[in-house]
């Protein structure tokens, strides 16, 4: 069975600074996806960034980037130039890659890291 671990329940960062959120996972699968979802207070979860395990290049989306270390089963999220709007709960999630139609593609979640960006 797959598991996802986020060891930092809470973090804080000053506006404009850089912060890194940690995530490790355990799986015997070779093909999978990893995600970071953001949940602002009282709002729905939205996808921040995703990484395909078969890609060696780390994913980047504007100020958000990941450090994907497949051998170490580590998937950290770096937020550069932090903004007040980045204040949210951040969830790391795993999805087994399957290629048949109708596959369910369920997400396996970490416990989350609550990030506060301070002015």
């Amino acid at each position: 069975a797959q598991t996802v671990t986020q060891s930092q329940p809470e973090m804080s960062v000053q506006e404009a600074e850089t912060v890194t959120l940690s995530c490790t996972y355990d799986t015997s699968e070779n093909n999978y996806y990893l995600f970071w979802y953001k949940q602002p207070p009282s709002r729905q979860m939205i996808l921040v960034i995703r990484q395909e395990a078969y890609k060696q290049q780390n994913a980047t989306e504007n100020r958000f980037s990941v450090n994907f270390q497949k051998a170490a089963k580590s998937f950290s999220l770096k937020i550069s130039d932090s903004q007040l709007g980045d204040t949210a709960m951040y969830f790391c999630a795993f999805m087994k890659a399957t290629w048949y139609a109708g596959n369910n593609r369920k997400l396996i979640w970490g416990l989350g890291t609550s990030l506060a960006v301070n002015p």
Partner: protein
Amino acid sequence: EPEVTQTPSHQVTQMGQEVILRCVPISNHLYFYWYRQILGQKVEFLVSFYNNEISEKSEIFDDQFSVERPDGSNFTLKIRSTKLEDSAMYFCASREAGATEEQYFGPGTRLTVT
């Protein structure tokens, strides 16, 4: 931009009562999911639904739970006889057809069983 919506935002019910949580997925999506998060615990997968049938369910999704897509737009989760341990935030998600992996989430329904 299309969004997944969920109603109600908060539901309080007594133990043993039936509840129905409602979700309206994004209109062209074909895959639907329910997850739940008990306070202080991880988000857990409950069930996935595709082509009008359950494609996978977790151990949590026992006979007390059922899902339905009654009218082509709503996607409901029914708990027949609620228990105290069913108190949680319930999230609905949907995904479009094809190889896309992204699931779009609703804001959740907080269920409190007293």
